[in-house]
């Protein structure tokens, strides 16, 4: 049972592995963009998103 749990856990971490392995800049972009998309899903009026995404990229890569 424990082994199965461990195996599952490693699989979950495996899903995220590309993000964990990414450069700090790329990681920052992914995390911030995902957070933005999550909060946009929660928002009633969505508005334009491109400017926000560009700001995230430009902030991460200076």
């Amino acid at each position: 049972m424990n082994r199965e749990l461990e195996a599952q856990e490693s699989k979950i971490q495996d899903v995220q592995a590309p993000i964990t392995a990414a450069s700090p800049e790329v990681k920052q972009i992914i995390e911030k963009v995902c957070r933005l998309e999550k909060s946009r899903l929660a928002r009633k009026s969505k508005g334009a998103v491109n400017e926000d995404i560009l700001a995230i990229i430009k902030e991460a890569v200076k």
Partner: protein
Amino acid sequence: MKLTSIKFCNFRSFYGQTPEIAIAGGEFQNTTIIHGNNGAGKTSLLNGFTWVLYEKFTAAFAVTEQLVNKRAISEVGEDQAVECWVEVGWEHEGVRYRAKRNCRVYKNPTTIDATKTKLTIQIVGDDGKWYFPIEQPEEIINNILPVSLHQYFFFDGERIEEIVRSDKKAEIAEATEIFLGVKVIDLATKHLKEAKKTLDSELAAIGDAETKQLLKHQSKLEREISKISQRQTEIAEDLESQQVFKKDISARLVELSSVRDLQERRESLENQKRKNYDELKKTKESLKKAISKQAYTLLLSETTVKFRDIIVTFKQRGQLKSGISREFVSELMKSGRCICGAELKEGGNGHFHVKSLLRKTGSSSVEETAIRMGAQIDDLEKQAQLFLEMINREQQRIYQLKTSLSDIEMNLDSIEEILRKDPNEDISGLQKRLDEIEARIDDLNREQGSNEKEISHLNTEIDLVVKQIAKQKQNEGRQILAQRRIIATQDAIDILTEVKNRQEKQFRLQLEKRVQEIFSEISVTPYIPKISEKYELTLVENTTGIEAAVAASTGENQILSLSFIASIIDKVREWSEKKKIMMVPDSSTFPIVMDSPFGSLDANSRRHIAQTIPKLANQLVVLVTKTQWREEVESEIMQRIGKEYVLTYYSSKPNCEEDFLQIGREKYYLTCQSPNGFEYSEIVEVERN
């Protein structure tokens, strides 16, 4: 989201403010049971949650426009308002929330008008006090449990099969995508691609790198300069050697006794010529300087005449007076005392006389300025005169020098002419040679001058190119940055695509496996739930060895729906701990509020569901009729009950049949006669010993 309470005021069958219904939230005793007969308000209670949180109602909730309790409306006068609200409390990640939605209705002679509803949220701060957060209430709720997912947690058990109906496939697929974080990845990828396009066009706008071309042009110009400079050195050397030749020939002429005098005379004239040229150059320069410094004084004559006219007019008007100044008299009046010591009181004789002096005095500051400017004007006039004299002198000098130079040149010409025509061939030959050298020197001087001009022109051009290069280099920096951003964006897109692929393999299959496990625990059928690559949920059977879709009964679909919800809760709870980035909702605990469950199910399935759901959901609120709360359900859930309530329905129907629940030694009425002619419900907490 862990629900903590719900409270009503004039909402549907609840008259006035109800007591707060506390929702069980224990680890094991996580179930709240609410008993009620048909019409007692079970569906209203379920819809209380969805109305507050999402302003939504379940399909079974009839006449949604009649939210306000009828008794409350009947008790107010015309044009008076009735307040109706529901308040839901919950905890999320250690923070307590309280959301309240209210609306008002106004009773008019023929109509009842309702206002728009208003949602407010309060949260408990670190100091334990309730305050209003700055975020929009809807946004707060949607972040915790999105509206698109609410139907999987607040539902009518009799219609729960609807979520897996074939026409709802897209809806449940989207919900699953949201749960698994696929939706966030898809949106992030889509928007990152759009952003990349913008970055691409930004890069294009910075322009192609012209630096290389500019650098090439710069080195070409530099090569030209170096070529001309080389030529300048050659010219200088040539000039020097021509001078040496000239000196040499001149020396040889001196050696020839017959023309020695002439040659010496010529050398002396040439010396004079050089000196005169130097002198002429100096004189012209000093003339230039004087003109740029002082020529303006000659242009001021009209202005000085005007100034003098003004001064004369001032004097004629008596505005420029010597003697006592206006400032002095004003000061006396201000101090209230004359220089003789007499007091100067307003209205007094002394005051009148001193005041009249003001009209006769002039301002000392105006007078001073007039005197100072007068002196400056005099000085300017003197300067103009001196300038004129100096110009005349210098011009005369120039004229003298030019005349003298012309004389010298004439003398030199005649000497050269004599030498050229000298019968002695040595002499005339030497003179011819001298003429040639002179012509050569003249050519070289001209070339030197034109080369200097060319070098200066090329240098200006180089300066310009250098500036352009610097600008271009700045652009290059911007280009490199833009390219880095594009690469990072592409990396982010690639990584998210990869994560989506892995998620597809891991999460979808794990979720599918869990649905299959739960479904097979509850159902007696051999059917297998499947989650397709498009996240569509279907039921298949495999008895013939070929997978085929099942035309499932309502009961099977209800089991499938509940299995799906239970497995989602189970899996999302497990994943969200480690996968905060993408998970929506931002939560690992989920409540289930279900009205009239077990409706179309047989006893066996009811038992299994009653066993499974409290185990998988973090929290369970079940609204049941007496018949739904039968042996197998009661016995399975009993141990897990944390809170229990009865909705007592007061019927306005005369002689209505009373109904009650016997719990222990207590009787809890489900239906009884209304004492006041109105139908309404009351909430009574059950005390089990």
